[in-house]
């Protein structure tokens, strides 16, 4: 079976997303240490973005 370029791209994209999700889940395992200053900086940065982004 010969895959088209678009199909190969789609497979790579899906695999990449899966790996990223796994990395994220692994990072979340065991929780995180809450950093109030970092959380506030993230809040301010998010609010500074335009709404429609």
């Amino acid at each position, binding site marked *: 079976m010969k895959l088209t370029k678009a199909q190969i791209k789609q497979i790579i994209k899906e695999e990449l997303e899966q790996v990223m999700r796994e990395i994220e889940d692994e990072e*979340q395992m065991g929780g995180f240490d809450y950093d109030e200053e970092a959380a506030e900086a993230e809040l301010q940065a998010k609010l500074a973005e335009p*709404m429609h982004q």
Partner: protein
Amino acid sequence: MELDKKALAVTRLVAAIYEWDPRGPSSASDEWDKEKAVKQLIDSALPSEQSRQNLIDMVLAMTLLTSGNVATVRDPSSFDPKKSKQLYTILSSASKYLFNCLRVPYHQKITQENYAAAKKLLPIIGSSSMLESEVYSVFSKSGLASTKPTLAKHIDTSPAKAGIGGYDQLHRGLSNVSDAMVIRITNLDKSWDMSRGVSTSRNYASAKGFSMKEGTNHVLFSFDNPTKKGFNALRMSKYGKEEEVVLSGVAQIDNYQLTFYAEDADIDPNGTGFGRNSEYAIQITPQMIFVRKGLRPFFVKNDISGQEAHLFIKEAMSGKPFSITGKDGTEAKLVCKPKTASIEAFGSIK
């Protein structure tokens, strides 16, 4: 830099004029009527070149925040002349209309100086507060109330009226934010600085839509705005449907409703033991913690303090195991499911 209140009043009135339907014999005559009204207003309220420039600077600052490069607004030194667009490409129809009347050369490219001026001006216009009567005064002095009675009626009776005097409540939705950020929002003892000027909406539904737009977590702010601060972007923005108001000040949250989900900590995280991985829905306000196991109430604690609620959230949402004892005396060791939170927070702008 001082706020030019007359220029600010003109921005509100121009937005209303743009929405006005003069009901003339043709659309061309309607346009002509509106253009004449804008010119009459500007000639009367802003006779000097400086005051007209102040008006242009305000609309430009709002435009760069709402449809320009926001990162460059925050840090004008990051301006890249190669990526600069012509101004007209980011203008709304209403702003083009105003700039036409003021003969602004909007086919020129946006400059670093434009961004630097916007950065300086946004905190000022975002914290500006104007009474309805102040705007009406500028309108009356222009003579438009007598020469264009249907315009006066439009401003008096249409939704534009609310915009003339500002809004007593503004909203903002955020999506795809971290658990840590949700925890921060629930700390009622600490306000935060929004003085750089941020986009909010006068429309609750619009802000709610943005809170659900991307992935979890979902955050929706509603700010009481008793002094009606803010610069009304509304239809002057290219994204008019968002009904934006540029707001700056200090945000203080007083109340919230938070929901997130957890599961048993000691069970196979892949859930291979069918039926064993119980899901817990945790609902919290600054006064109460309520935990549901499946469909049944499992734990409730009323009359708590805002600090107690925040400490519980900080522990539970950190992703580390935490314990609670149910109504039936059974102890459950739970772990929060990451990025499952929805929070609606209520506060005010100072």
